[in-house]
């Protein structure tokens, strides 16, 4: 990774103003999607020479800074293309905000999550990757299909799967043994039962830790809501967020905190689990390596629990690599080569080993890793139960945040679930009207 002095931006005052105004209002009034697609379709990629250097904006998900640097070094030595790395924030929201503040011209490749790529697409900041990957000789058939299809919108893909994760059920094996529990729970009722036993036996302070609002609770808890037959939305129909099933699922979670078998973690459920405050939790596979490094006990991983209405369906998540529409064709081609490299079978195997993320390439050889740390394999096997996330959480700008804060307050204050979720529903409706209606229906 070569650091270059600095990028020379020359933006016009107007562009800066609109970008800044966009960042301030945190919504995208300009939803004239379509230009990028046309532009990409017009370019004859066979005549384009890749650029010498590109800018890669990342927030190093899962503590991946060191492994990213290693992969980038390999890319540079293979292709001669320099990659300038910019740490664009500590999480996906900061990265997306940073990208939007720069009007989408401050990076060529950017890490965007399941919930942040679509707003950037709406702002016309992303270019479809299909033709570019073909021009760069990258075979897209190698990707795990479900993970690549997450970036499909209206016939084009807008990214490649990179730091992809699912939520995983973590349990403290030592605590289980101490309390005489045989194995991990299959259903949410068993989670409650086991947690109660762990608390009654005074093995741990809490049996289960729920995530706080900044740990994307709407992502992991989708499994619970789905298990009861509810959802955050049914495509663009938001009535399911306050349906009987969703309310019942959330009341179950709320009662867990009230009855004392569960808590809402103060900083992160990872901390509570790794320190032994709580014996079980659901957290991203991307946190696996951090947990293994931190925990003084044996860590077990299992599939997400089933609910009364559905088998433990697993939301996919994490981040992909997207290409900026504002870059020159030369930079875009070089960037396509770069994202191909970062998501190749070999790179993904190393990336997965270093972080715990699910390898997004089918041919990634993980046998050594699984032999040593079988916990890694649960995440990959669990992909069979993957379910595409609800539109409300991933496509509706601002909805994930709304859900996150509502979930935290529901779990910690004991407010009436139905009233709150009905408020969320009307909030979703108004977000949809202001930010999306014209684009989707128009």
């Amino acid at each position, binding site marked *: 990774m070569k650091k270059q002095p*600095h990028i020379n931006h020359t933006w016009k005052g107007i562009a800066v103003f609109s970008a800044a105004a966009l960042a301030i209002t945190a919504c995208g009034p300009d939803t004239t999607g379509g230009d990028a697609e046309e532009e990409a379709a017009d370019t004859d990629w066979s005549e384009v020479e890749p650029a010498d250097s590109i800018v890669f904006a990342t*927030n*190093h998900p899962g503590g991946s800074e060191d492994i990213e640097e290693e992969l980038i070094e390999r890319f540079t030595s293979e292709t001669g293309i320099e990659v300038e790395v910019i740490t664009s924030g500590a999480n996906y929201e900061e990265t997306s905000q940073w990208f939007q503040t720069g009007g989408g011209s401050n990076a060529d490749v950017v890490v965007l999550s399941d919930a942040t790529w679509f707003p950037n697409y709406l702002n016309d900041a992303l270019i479809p990757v299909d033709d570019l990957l073909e021009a760069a000789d990258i075979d897209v058939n190698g990707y795990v299909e479900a993970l690549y299809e997450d970036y499909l919108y209206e016939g084009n893909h807008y990214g490649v799967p990179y730091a992809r994760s699912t939520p995983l059920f973590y349990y403290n094996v030592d605590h289980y043994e101490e309390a005489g529990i045989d194995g991990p729970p299959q259903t949410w009722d068993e989670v409650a039962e086991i947690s109660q036993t762990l608390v009654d036996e005074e093995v741990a302070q809490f049996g289960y830790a729920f995530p706080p609002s900044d740990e994307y609770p709407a992502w992991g808890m989708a499994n619970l809501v789905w298990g009861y037959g509810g959802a955050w939305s049914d495509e663009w129909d938001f009535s399911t967020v306050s349906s009987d099933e969703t309310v019942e699922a959330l009341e179950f979670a709320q009662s867990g905190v009230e009855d004392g078998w569960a808590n809402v973690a103060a900083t992160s459920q990872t901390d509570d689990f790794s*320190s032994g405050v709580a014996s079980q939790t659901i957290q991203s596979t*991307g946190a696996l390596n951090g947990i293994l490094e931190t925990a003084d006990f044996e860590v077990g991983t299992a599939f997400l629990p089933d609910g009364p209405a559905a088998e433990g369906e697993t939301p996919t998540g994490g981040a992909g690599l997207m290409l900026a529409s504002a870059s020159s064709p030369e930079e875009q081609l070089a960037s396509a080569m770069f994202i191909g490299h970062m998501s190749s079978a070999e790179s993904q195997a190393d990336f997965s080993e270093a972080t715990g993320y699910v390898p997004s390439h089918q041919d990634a050889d993980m046998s050594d890793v699984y032999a040593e740390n079988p916990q890694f394999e649960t995440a990959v096997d669990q992909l069979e139960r993957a379910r595409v996330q609800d539109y409300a959480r991933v496509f509706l700008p601002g909805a994930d945040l709304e859900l996150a804060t509502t979930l935290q307050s529901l779990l910690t204050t004991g407010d009436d679930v139905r009233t709150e979720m009905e408020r969320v529903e009307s909030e979703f409706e108004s977000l949809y009207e202001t930010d999306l209606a014209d684009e989707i229906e128009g």
Partner: protein
Amino acid sequence: MLTGYLPILIALLIIVLPLVWMVSSSFKPVNEIVTLTPQLLPQEVTTANYATVDRRIPLMTVLQNSLIVTSVGSIIKVLLAITTAYALVYIRVPGANLIFLGILVALMVPPEVSMLPNFMTIEALGGRNTLWGIILPGLGTAFGTFLLRQHFKSLPKELFEAAELDGAGHFRKLFQIAVPVSLPAISTVSLVTIVNEWNSFLWPLIITDTRDRMTLPVALNQLRSVEDQVSSYGILMAGAVLVIVPMLIIFAMLQRYIVSGLTQGAVK
């Protein structure tokens, strides 16, 4: 005896314990930090956290950036504050009170409000990812001007009348009379300015995104990572130690002046 020392001891513990904890944690492996049986001292002393900080962040570069920004920024700020305050008190300017009112208003508006216009201005001037871009917008200091103006007003007029009789101009009156007798007040302003410049976070965060132009606090912020917070506590602690140590040294050096500066005018 005890009644006098007890509050001091308690206050000392409240202030020092978190710092001690931070320093101690920076030498702990992560499983000693995230644990239910915390120990004050690390059981297995490790410098791995510092090594990680050093590997990920170009420490010397960002330290140098911080030193340049802090020293240049503070010197200009203090100089501007002294001269403005002097002009407001001793030079007959039409509408001096109005100007002073403007300065007071600036003191009342939170700095975040001017963040966006500042960003657009500096960006248009080509100041993104430059040190002068970090320094420039913060140079006008309402706080220092206000404090020094009040202080200059309390100086005996006779001093300056005598100097005037001896034929001293404004420049000499300022630097040979006002400044020397106001050293404690100026030190206080300097110290507050230096600490603010050193710790300044939001503005440098917004205006820089390449690591070789970042100041220390902004660069250390980059050690945080989503979904990996649990194993980064030790690294963050090591980073925090590196930010705080230089400030502690400056405090120790200026301590004598701060105390006399703060009690200035308390006894007539």
